[in-house]
Structure formats: structure tokens, C-alpha cells
């Protein structure tokens, strides 16, 4: 494995971390459109908290996908063709929730507004759950042949472990979205988000424990890297505890950073466990490795130069755009 290959493995992890940190609260807020927000005015406010941002946040996914293609095309080809139906459902969910915000705002009848609100809610739930399921299934090992083609059956990626993984990621996104709403609104929505999280955090703790236990039995992470895997799982729990502390003591930033770091810990856990592989095959001889799945040194070198010259500029205006919309949005009056 060359340094560049290692660097790109890390970079893909960084891009997915960015995606889960940012799109995590987008998904969470999307899930809240129907149940949490009670009136049409409340929904306007809830959606508006992510209005200027969701689009840019989703670009992290597109960039991660593109970067994977540009650095590890064998990984990209195996992962995307192998998890065909899961990715197809993710796409459908992302599409429905993506257009729902704009379409809902322009619907005249309640029936249709209702339709697009459900599209946002269900789409967000499904996207978060399916992403969680996909990555959990991926680390459990899949039937992959010599050519790198994966021929998984339904039971390979839908099982207890992957469902628990999916639920855990969904709940993580949900509390992350609520923490975001606590930061971005004032009034009744802000209060409600706090009380919802008081209930949801204990659920999340339970989920994380079950997930850690299943991780022990379903993957080789604890066998191969007992120290780091344990450390990351502990970090995950600590971040969640900190976020919960932020809920109990009403420290909004602490909660938001805590839930964001919890999501990043999940990504780190996955990437740490994968290393030095990128896809885990049931037959270890067929696992895709960092060293033989990457592009040529020339392309990796080129991509490194380009990424390190463009990404800093992107980060500057990306962060600036959050700064511009820093202001809290007021909850609508109750009579509405």
C-alpha cells in the first residue's frame, strides 16, 4: 500500500464523515416534518432550518461517490453493483425527499401538500435507515467472487445485524436533527425538540449497546483490531453521553456537536475495521484490498493536488453560508 492509497482511503472516510455529519441533521429534520411539526406554519419553519443547506449537504454524498470512483474504482464498482437494490431504494428516497421541499411549498391543495410532506418524512426515514443498513451489511462480509462481483441475496444484507445498524443510524440522525432544530429555532419548536430528545436518547443508548454486541458477533472487527475498535465504540458512547448531557443541561451546542461526532464515530468505526480492505468478502481471498483496488499513481497524485487546492476554498464559502443563515427562526404563534 502506497502513501497515496492510504491518504485516499482516509479522504473517502472524511467525505463520508462530512456527509453523515451534515446530511445527518437534514435527514433528521426531514423525518420531523410530519410528526414533530404539528401545523403547516410549523412545517414551514422546520423545513426552512435546512432550506438553504440541504442541497449543499447532499453534494458531500455526490463528492464521496465521485471520489471513490476517482480513487478506488474497483471498490466503487463492487459496492454499487453489489448493493443494487438497496442503492436503488436510497435513490428513490433521496429523490422524493429532494424535490419534496420545493414542490410542497408550491402546492395549492392540502392533499398535495400532505403528499409532499409525507414524501419528505418517509424519504428521510428510508434514506437514513438504508444507509445504515448498507454499511452495516458491508462490514459483515458479503459473497464476492474473484472478479470482484458481489452476488448477495436478500438475507445477506437484510438480517438482524443490518436492521439494528439501520435503526441505530436512523435514531442518530433523528436526535441530530432535533439538536439542530434546538440551535436554529426559538420558541415552542425549540422547547419541543428538547423534550423529544429527553425521550429519544435512552432509546439511542439501548440501540448502541445492541449494535456493539452484534458487531462483536457479526464482524471480525474485535478479532482483528480489538484495541482500536473498542476505543472507537467507547468514543461513540461518550459522544452520545455528552450530547445527552447537553440535553439535560440544555447546552445546545454541546448536544449538536455530540450527536455529530457520534455519527462521525460510526464512519470511523467502519473505516477502521475495513482497513486494509475496502470490501470484505466471505472468502477472505476475494476481499478487495486498498492496495489492489485503487487507480494508478498518476491519477491519485493528480486528484490529491486538485483536491487539496479546491477543497479549502469550498470549505471557506461552505462555512460562510452557514454563518449567513446563523440567525434563529421563530416558531409560529400557537393560534396558527
Amino acid at each position: 500500500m502506497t502513501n497515496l492509497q492510504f491518504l485516499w482511503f482516509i479522504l473517502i472516510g472524511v467525505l463520508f464523515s462530512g456527509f453523515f455529519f451534515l446530511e445527518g441533521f437534514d435527514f433528521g429534520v426531514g423525518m420531523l416534518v410530519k410528526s414533530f411539526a404539528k401545523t403547516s406554519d410549523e412545517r414551514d419553519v422546520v423545513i426552512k432550518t435546512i432550506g438553504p443547506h440541504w442541497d449543499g449537504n447532499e453534494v458531500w454524498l455526490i463528492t464521496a461517490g465521485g471520489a471513490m470512483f476517482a480513487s478506488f474504482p474497483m471498490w466503487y464498482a463492487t459496492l454499487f453493483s453489489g448493493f443494487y437494490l438497496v442503492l436503488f431504494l436510497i435513490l428513490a428516497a433521496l429523490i422524493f425527499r429532494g424535490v419534496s421541499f420545493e414542490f410542497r411549498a408550491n402546492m395549492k391543495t392540502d392533499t398535495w401538500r400532505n403528499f409532499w410532506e409525507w414524501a419528505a418524512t418517509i424519504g428521510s426515514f428510508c434514506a437514513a435507515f438504508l444507509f445504515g443498513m448498507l454499511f452495516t451489511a458491508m462490514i459483515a462480509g458479503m459473497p464476492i467472487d474473484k472478479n470482484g462481483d458481489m452476488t448477495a441475496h436478500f438475507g445477506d444484507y437484510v438480517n438482524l445485524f443490518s436492521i439494528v445498524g439501520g435503526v441505530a443510524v436512523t435514531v442518530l440522525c433523528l436526535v441530530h436533527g432535533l439538536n439542530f432544530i434546538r440551535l436554529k429555532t426559538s420558541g415552542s419548536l425549540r422547547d419541543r425538540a428538547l423534550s423529544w430528545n429527553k425521550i429519544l436518547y435512552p432509546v439511542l443508548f439501548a440501540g448502541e449497546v445492541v449494535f456493539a454486541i452484534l458487531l462483536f458477533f457479526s464482524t471480525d472487527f474485535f478479532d482483528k483490531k480489538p484495541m482500536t475498535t473498542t476505543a472507537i465504540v467507547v468514543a461513540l458512547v461518550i459522544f452520545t453521553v455528552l450530547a445527552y448531557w447537553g440535553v439535560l443541561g440544555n447546552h445546545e451546542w454541546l448536544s449538536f456537536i455530540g450527536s455529530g461526532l457520534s455519527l462521525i464515530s460510526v464512519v470511523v468505526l467502519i473505516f477502521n475495521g475495513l482497513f486494509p480492505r475496502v470490501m470484505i468478502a466471505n472468502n477472505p481471498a476475494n476481499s478487495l484490498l486498498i492496495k489492489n483496488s485503487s487507480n494508478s499513481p498518476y491519477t491519485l497524485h493528480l486528484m490529491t493536488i486538485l483536491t487539496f487546492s479546491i477543497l479549502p476554498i469550498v470549505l471557506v464559502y461552505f462555512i460562510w453560508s452557514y454563518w449567513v443563515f446563523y440567525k434563529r427562526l421563530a416558531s409560529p404563534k400557537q393560534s396558527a
Partner: protein
Amino acid sequence: MLNLGLDILGLARFQFGMTTVFHFFFVPFSIGLAFVVAVMETMYAIKGDEDYKKMAQFWGKMFLYSFAVGVVTGIIQEFQFGMNWSEYSRFMGDIFGAPLAIEALAAFFLESTFIGMWMFTWDRFNKWVHTLFIWLVMFGSSLSALWILAANSFMQNPLGYIINQKTGHVQMVSFGKVVGNPQLWNEFPHVIFGAFVTAAFVIAGCSAWRLLKKDHVGFYRKSLNVALVIGLIFSLGSIASGDLQTRYLINNQPMKFAAMEGLYKNSTNKGEWAAVSGFDTKQHKTTWSVDVPYVLNLLSYHKTTGTVKGMNQVNKDMHAKYDKKFGSDMNYYVPTKTLFWSFRIMAGAGALFALLAIVGLIFNRKRSQLIMKQRWFLYILGLCLWLPFVVNTAGWFVTEFGRYPWIVYGLLTIADAVSPNVSVASLLTTNIVYFAMFAIMGLVMIILCHRTLKAGPDAENTDGYSAGDTKELDPYSKGAFNHD
């Protein structure tokens, strides 16, 4: 499994065609609208005329709808390479991934961030800064077109690569050559100009329908004027850049060129050009045609002499060149009728757009009322708002069908590129669901644009989402004081 005569290859190709065509309804529309709206807002910034601000906001709404659909369908496009074409992804990863990743990094972030800024900050920034936002969006979306076309250009005309002897995959040796591909620099201006023409004629068409109803005459006449000026400049630009591209094909992809002109036999020195003709694609011959002498040579070489190779000759040449590697049972004929007619639709529409723009600008002169009296002309303009979408599709038909049987010209066939591990059932399901989703989204788009148009430029922004800061806190309400 039911045997419906469906195979993975056919379904994967259909899916690629369907998503690309649908995606490309919205891409040029968005790029073009961003440009036209940016021009309108710039005029507002310069002249201070509120009408132009209203125009930017009004047509900007359609831009936002289109952008939303363009983004989500674009994700399918990106994922599709890995999902349906895993062998292609493995073969081409070294070349294809780079432009795709740069597209996301350099272009999509720019677009998506500044579109949020533009949408929600009408009253918060100085007008010049706000105008800059839409220009950045426009710049970002053009840049994304550039990178994805760089990837497409390699598929049409591979340059700057070697074949890795161990893996058999392509490997980049010169990024400069990949980006400097002449195919790209012939294709890019044509696509961008076509995008500007698309938006211009949709705006012109919408304005024409409202003018027929004598609704907001001043506003729509002004909009019409901006649209037609842009439409004229860039339809001429499209024709010129299309001409460049066509002439580049003669040597580079002679099969595509010969099919566009419906030539089975080599042309004679007289350069007879078939305006229309019929084909027997099984026997590889032309059954009838209406020929005009010299035009073929004028189109091909800008002079009256010369000859062009026909498809039968090109087929022989290609067999001679590729049989050793790909076997003698390859079919190198492209779908002739599709290319022939698509090319005619595209070229004909280009000329029509230029003509409509000239006539429209004459009728719509400031002091003249002609435009309101020539109702037939407004009807034609109104109908032509659909034409750019047909033309854009025809353009891609020529480019992509003309690539057959290659996915990467001369290096990899379409048949060898498909994912071997995806089932017919999966592909059939996704085809049906995508089709249904596209139909819903397309329908909602049309309804939304129609409704926006009917509501008119003075309509209140009622939604609180696209409307920007209409839901700001009332400073006298109780909530204002717990605002931190």
C-alpha cells in the same frame, strides 16, 4: 423468471438512455435560466429598474424547480455507472472518476451553496453582491457541464491514456490531453450555447402565451426582448459551434457522420446532400432521397469539392482495424434513421430559432405595437417553447447512438461494460420505478411552471420556502424577546 425477451444489456441501455434524456431536460434548462436570470439581475443592478428585479425573481422561480429536479436526477446518473456498468467503471475508473470527482468538488459545491444564498437573501445583501451569487451559480453549473463533457469526450475520442498490460484497463498518462481533447472543446460550447437557447425560448414562449392574453404586457414584452436577444446570439453560436463539431466528426467518427447524412455509399465529388431520404437498414442502402448538389461538401469542408466516406466503406475500414481484437462478428453500423432524422431536427430547429428571434425582435421594437397585432407569431413562439427539449434530446441521440457499438470508442464495447451480477428482474423493476418517478416529476414541473405563469409576476410569495425572508419575526410579537 418470465421470459419477455429482455436482457441485462438492453435494459441497462434503456435505463441509461431514459435517465440521461430526462436529466438533460433539466440541465440545459437550469444552466440557461441561471444565465438569463443573471443577465436580468445584472440589468437591474445597472439600471435600477425594478422591472428587471421582478423578472429575475419571476423566472428565477422556474429555475429553482428545474434545479431541484436536475440535482436529484443527477445523483442517479452518478450512481448508475457503478450500479449498471460496473465493468465499465473498472475499465475506465482511472480516467472517468477524476472529472466526475472534480465536477462535484469544483462545481456542485459552488452551485448548491450559492443557490441557497441567492434564494434566501434578496433583502439582505447589496444588489451587486446578490447578483454575484447568481453568476456564481451560473459559473458553477457551466463548470459542471465542462467536467462531465470532459468525461464524455474521452468516451467519444480517447486521448492521453495507455492500456495497463496487467489489468487491461485504461490508465491516464496525461491529464492535459484528457482536458485538452478537441472533442471536448467542440462539444462544450455547443452544449452551453444550446442551454442558453433552451432557456431563452422557454421564456419567450411563456411570455408569448401571456401576451396573447394581454396580461402584464409591459413586463412580458421586456422579458421577451431579453430572451430573444439572448436567443438570437446563442442560436447563431449553436449553429457555428455545431458546424465545428460536425466537421470534426468527419475524420474522427466517420461512421457517425455518414449516418447523420444518410450516406451508405461514398459520396461523389459533386457532393450531393440528401435533404430527406428513406433507408433500408437491413440491406444497407438508401431507397429514395431528395438530393441537393454541393451542399454536402459545403457542410463538410466549406467548399464545393471533396468526397465523404459512406457507411459501407467505414464498416469495412473498421472491420480491418478492429477484427483482430474484437472479432469479425461485430456490427459497426449505427442506427441510421435515428441519426439522420435527429440531425435534421437539430439543424432545422437551430435555423428556426435564429429566424424566430430576428422576426420577434423586429416586431417587439420599443415603440412598435406590431408584436401585439401579429398573433400568429405569438402562437408560433408559444408552441416553440417545447422545441428546445426535443432538440437537446436529438443532439444526444446523435452523439450517443452514433457511438455504437462502443462505450469507449475503439477500446470497449457497450456489451462488455455492463454489470454481470445484476439481474434482469432488478433492472426491470428499477426501469419501471424510475419511469414512474420521472413521469411524476415531469408532470409536477409542468404544472408548477404553468401555475407560476398564471399567477403572474405580481403574485405574492406565499410559500415561505422559496420566498426568502417573508417569515421573519414580527418585531412586536411576544416571541421576539426570547430571540437570541
